[in-house]
């Protein structure tokens, strides 16, 4: 039972992450390829605050998310004028910068050795109780993220966001301040990614740079595209499939050394099939290309 609860929690954290990327990728139509950077900023900020300054994870969660949001805003200011692949490359680069930052600033982040002993939100003595607590906590944050995404998207503001995905120039010609809207969505997306990062850190209690590398960004992009961009259900399904699927490989009895590369191959294969056969994803409505 503990194993299933753990999978539920991890899936939930990635659902939040995928939903936050979906705002940028699915609704705004901007191929952000460095989303793990905001996940990392949230995770490292609140972990370091907890470890070095003794700040409660409850407060650190929001400070971490705010830091992520501020970096999202800065990235938005720097990249709002970039189109498609150029935007993708710029955000990819940002992901690399943050990754090598946490990898090399060993005085602060301990680099590849990682940060052990991150405090949990509530210290339980019993593992089962702790897992139940985290299930409820994560579920709550998933619901909040869904609620706010719906609130933002099903509104005249959300309509403007989606018009930028379809034709930025036409939106501009209709008097929409596309630059401002883009920066707002980057900021909100980064905020929720920061929340997910902080939840992850205070659940796992150990983080190192490998959880926030480029492959992690790609994995989140995959979740959104596989499930379906521009829907709420899509990223949820995408995150669930891509978290639970590798676990299933484990049960088939494939050794870990084979399972890891096999997983990557299957992801790649899935993506190729999907882009050709169903570019809008499993349950999606919108096509980016």
């Amino acid at each position, binding site marked *: 039972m503990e194993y299933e609860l753990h999978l539920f929690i991890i899936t939930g954290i990635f659902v939040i992450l995928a939903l936050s990327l979906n705002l940028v990728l699915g609704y705004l139509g901007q191929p952000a390829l460095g989303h793990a950077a905001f996940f990392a900023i949230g995770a490292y900020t609140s972990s370091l605050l907890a470890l070095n300054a003794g700040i409660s994870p409850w407060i650190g969660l929001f400070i971490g998310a705010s830091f992520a949001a501020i970096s999202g805003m800065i990235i938005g200011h720097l990249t709002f004028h970039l189109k498609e692949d150029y935007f993708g490359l710029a955000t990819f680069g940002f992901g690399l910068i943050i990754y090598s930052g946490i990898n090399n600033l060993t005085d602060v982040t301990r680099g590849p050795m990682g940060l052990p002993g991150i405090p949990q939100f509530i210290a339980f003595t019993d593992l089962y109780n702790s897992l139940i607590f985290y299930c409820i906590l994560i579920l709550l944050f998933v619901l909040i993220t869904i609620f*706010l995404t719906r*609130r*933002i998207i099903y*509104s*005249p*503001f*959300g*309509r*403007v966001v*989606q*018009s930028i*995905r*379809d*034709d930025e*120039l*036409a*939106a*501009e*010609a*209709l*008097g*929409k*301040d*596309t630059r401002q809207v883009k920066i*707002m969505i980057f900021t909100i997306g980064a905020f929720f990614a920061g929340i997910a990062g902080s939840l992850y850190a205070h659940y796992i209690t150990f983080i190192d740079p490998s959880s926030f590398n480029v492959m992690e960004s790609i994995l989140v992009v995959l979740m959104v595209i596989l499930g379906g961009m521009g829907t709420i259900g899509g990223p949820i399904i995408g995150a669930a499939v891509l978290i639970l699927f590798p676990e299933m490989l484990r049960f088939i009895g494939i050794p870990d050394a084979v399972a890891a590369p096999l997983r990557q191959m299957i992801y790649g294969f899935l993506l190729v099939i999907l882009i050709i056969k169903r570019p809008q994803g499993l349950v999606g*409505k*919108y*096509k980016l290309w």
Partner: protein
Amino acid sequence: MPFLILENLSKHFDGNLVLDNVSLQLKERELVAMIGPNGSGKTTLFNAISGFLKPDQGKIIFKGIEINNLPPNKIARLGITRSFQRIRLFHQLSVLDNMLLAARYNEGEKLFSALFRTRLIHKEEEENIKKSLEYLSFVGLFDKKDSLGENLSFGQRKLLELAMAFASDADLILLDEPTSGVFPETKAKIIQNIQKLNEDGKTILFIEHDMELVMRLAKRIIVLDHGKLIADGHPDEIVNNEHVLDAYFGKRKSYA
């Protein structure tokens, strides 16, 4: 004071002069056609007025405000709307959503309004929906209100574009070849809609190649050639203007 003033507008592209010292004034409620051979700078002039292209020299003054340094979205909000030669719609949004994007919002389109929905914002949205549906009925697209933009035929897209111009509440409407490539019936509908827009008090400047339509619709014609304004006047004067005949029918002199 004139509604729109262009003062000595010039624009170079890689050493080519695409707008050459163009000066022009439009009065409120005018219905003006712009003609000229391909590459004469008509669309460039539209791009300059709507802010998508910054002129190298010259001034654009709209309702007494200098707009040549404003971004397109600010210019649009001052009351200038434009169509594009290659139709630009929101393909993955419904026809009604397209209309609502053209409609004017004071509060509703802000992020704050999305998060905290007040009665006022609901009212604004409802009024815009009501108006949009009226305009859609007027151009004959009411039945299509829930279709996606990408599922409309070419002619329907042209009509939607016009309906969006209605909804935009703009005072100056720039139309880039509004009837090119559509069936005669749709063309008649589009002409009727342009006239209606004009009667409603809108100032309209449109680019058109169909001279019969131009003669029927416009009360004033502007002719561009090689980026220069070579004629400006009543349709009857224009058809007999020597420069215009040269530009269109050869015996071409260089005006550069």
